[in-house]
């Protein structure tokens, strides 16, 4: 799994694939006050992206990849 779910925190790593969207959604449904750590992310599938956008969680850190960070910040308006 490219997403590591901790207590209230989800750490995204490397490539988060389409298969993880459902799990992510379920987790976000159960953890509405989740914090997301994207620092080690290199790509996230669109399905996961839209789940995050719908949930609009807090982010503890943005990806190191600058272009990805810009894309995500524009998506989350953060």
């Amino acid at each position, binding site marked *: 799994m490219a997403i590591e779910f901790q207590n209230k925190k989800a750490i995204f790593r*490397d*490539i988060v*694939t*389409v298969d993880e*969207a*459902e799990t*992510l*959604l*379920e987790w*976000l*449904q159960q953890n*509405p*006050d989740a914090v997301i750590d994207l620092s080690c992310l290199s*790509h*996230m*599938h*669109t*399905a*996961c*992206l*839209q*789940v995050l*956008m*719908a*949930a*609009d969680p807090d982010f503890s850190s943005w990806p190191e990849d600058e*272009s*990805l960070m*810009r*894309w995500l910040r*524009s*998506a989350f308006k953060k």
Partner: protein
Amino acid sequence: MNPLLEQFLIETRDFLEGIGEKVIELESASDDAVLLNELFRLVHTLKGNSGLFDFPEMTRVLHASEDLLDAIRSGKMVYTREVADYLLDAMDFVSMLCDEIEAEGAIKSDHAEESSRLAASIRDLMKDVNPAIPPEEITETKTTEDHHVIAREWLLAIPEDARREAYRMGKEGSPIHYIQYTPSEECFYQGDDPFYLVRQIRGLLWHDIMPRRPWQKLQEMDAYACNLVFTMLVVSSREEIAEHFRYVMDQVEIIPLSDKDLELLCEDRSDGGIPSSPQSCSSAEKYREDQEGSCSLTGTERSLLADILRIQKDILSLPDNVEWFKGRLKAVASTFSACCVQIGKKDALAELESSLKEAILAASPEPLQVWFDKHLSMFLDSEPDVEITLRMNDTEKRINSLASSQMTTGHVSKDGGPISSENAGSAMTDKNSKGRAENRTTSRVLKVDQAKIDRLMNLIGEMVVSKNALPYLASRAEDVYGIPELGREIKSHYISINRIVEEMQDAIMQVRMVPVAHVFQRFPRLVRDIANKLQKEVELIIEGEETEADKNIIESLAEPLIHIIRNSLDHGIELPEERIKAGKPPKGRLAIRAVQESDCVVIEISDDGRGIDPELIKLKAYEKGIIDEETLECITDQDAVNLIMAAGFSTSETVSDLSGRGVGMDVVRNAVEKVKGNIKIESEKGKGTRITLSLPLSVAVTNVMIVKSDGRKFGVPMDTVVETVRIPDDEVSSVKDKRVAILRDQVVPLFNLNDLLCINSPQRLNEEGELAVLVVRTYSGNAGIVVDEFYETTDIILKPMEGILAGIKAYAGTALLGDGSVLIVLNPKELV
């Protein structure tokens, strides 16, 4: 390797297999529209996937194939064998590229030519049909005028710096395009990753991702229905953009922006009164000052203003016991101030500011409410009050829904008062929707790395071994420590652990089971190709594809089966003319059947060809020295047929000499025996041949018999053991220098295990003077191995010999016994 690429390669192989199957199926049902559509879809998706990577050679060939299929699908062409040949060639090429990507990480540049040649030859097939329409022309749908209207609206959302950069680049003559990409809702099911696609675009000035419809509640959201729209401002030519998005062109709008457009837009924005670029900003400022004092709002604007104000008032009346209360007050005040500026009533601003300060200090919305009531008339001017009251209702509703949606997304902490009752309500809905989510039945298939399953297998193997240690422990408790009660208790525990371990083992075995279809699916293509090459007509019948067996066994089956099929087609089935002469239908039949029989998978390959001539085999075997003259005289036809599997029988020379089979049948036999299977050949001259392979369902556990010789324990696989007998030493007779025994009127040669293993000590007799003889099955019939003592049989996890030892054929491997000792397992077939 990049995990994305790895995934791509796995998927591509799956796709290629599917495509190959469908191409062949279509040959016999060329008018099956459903099948054709499926084939088209597979090729289309594969092409799309390949486009995500930089493999133009692959994409080019796939693109041509896709166009060809599209032409057939739309009835412009007919599906012929020629078409199938080209498609299969193309897929072989793609498969070869995949191998290369896997090995080298990239495609060698010298394939470009081959790729172009293939693509051109496929397109040649279509030359009678109208040439494919280039993608650029398809996308030109809306009029330029339309585009501009839409673009202007959208461009207002673009931040100033990006727009200024675009303006500058546009002035310099670079092509600027506004792109709106709205992926289809089902795009995830088609393997699209729109975000990946947009991330790869070059010349990006500005981008945004937005939901196209407001988000549903999280509890009701469908993660796999795409609800996003991507907008971008790109410095790039239309062709480049079209090329980038060519697989999703129907979902993309590309709008060119000339620098004139941009200039126009600058003016547009100042009209709108929102501050933008420096030059327009000053003009806007001026404009606003000119207008100051005179409120010139249109009807719609006025009603919007009324809405905004009303909402602010409602916000002020919300419960004030929340931690962000201050922020809320500030937000309301700044909205009021912006409204004042808009209608040109700046004089009320000072008072507003002091009201805000007051409100924050008092932690109460009252001062702001007072200010609002006082200045309400100023905002509304001639606006009829009636309208505002009418609008009240739906505004209220909106506010309420806003509040409750905040609740469900959890932005509100649990305070007291009216909120908590609302909270309880939303918690109820939470529960309900969660119940729905749980009830939804989804088929879940896990793709697991084989290494993980293998690890489980190894672990369960160790578990079996440590489980087996318990009986030893029990007997030690009894014999060594003299506590029989403890021994009994350990034994009863052993029974329950044993049951769980066996179930667990069974469960893991189940995971490893795959259907034989895994191997069978490539046969239609194989048979078709070979038959075509040999100009024979063959009907292939496959049955029992769903029969399951362990993955390793299924995989080890592939090669022997291909060998057998090739032999059948090459040597078994005759040419059509020959068949007609022999009174058979011109089309030969090759049947492959798989069935499960108790703990074996039985695979039967039969043909109605010319069969094997036992006489020829006998002679050949005699010439090769495999059988002696005596055997030549008395060997049965059935045994003679089986001789073709004897090592040394099949050499390249015999292939051309023999009219029957003989190509590498010993290879087949070895492969089958490696997984402890059996092979049987039955053949009738002129009627056909049937080869039956029976294979164990699983290789994980081996049942062995433990024997002792010279004080050492050895294991003998039970599947090779025929029987164990005690033979009185004086009943052993000698033939020349060999010792033999007569068992049920059969002469069985005897070998001392000590001699076979070069252990320098005689075999021991028991008290009655009898020899312990283990009768085993070997290539040349049964043989007796004399040992010192027999012990029990046991299940072990056989580990093959490694390194230099792997070359010693006499040993099948080693295993750990329950008491921790290592058992060497013999391979009697090689030993004798």
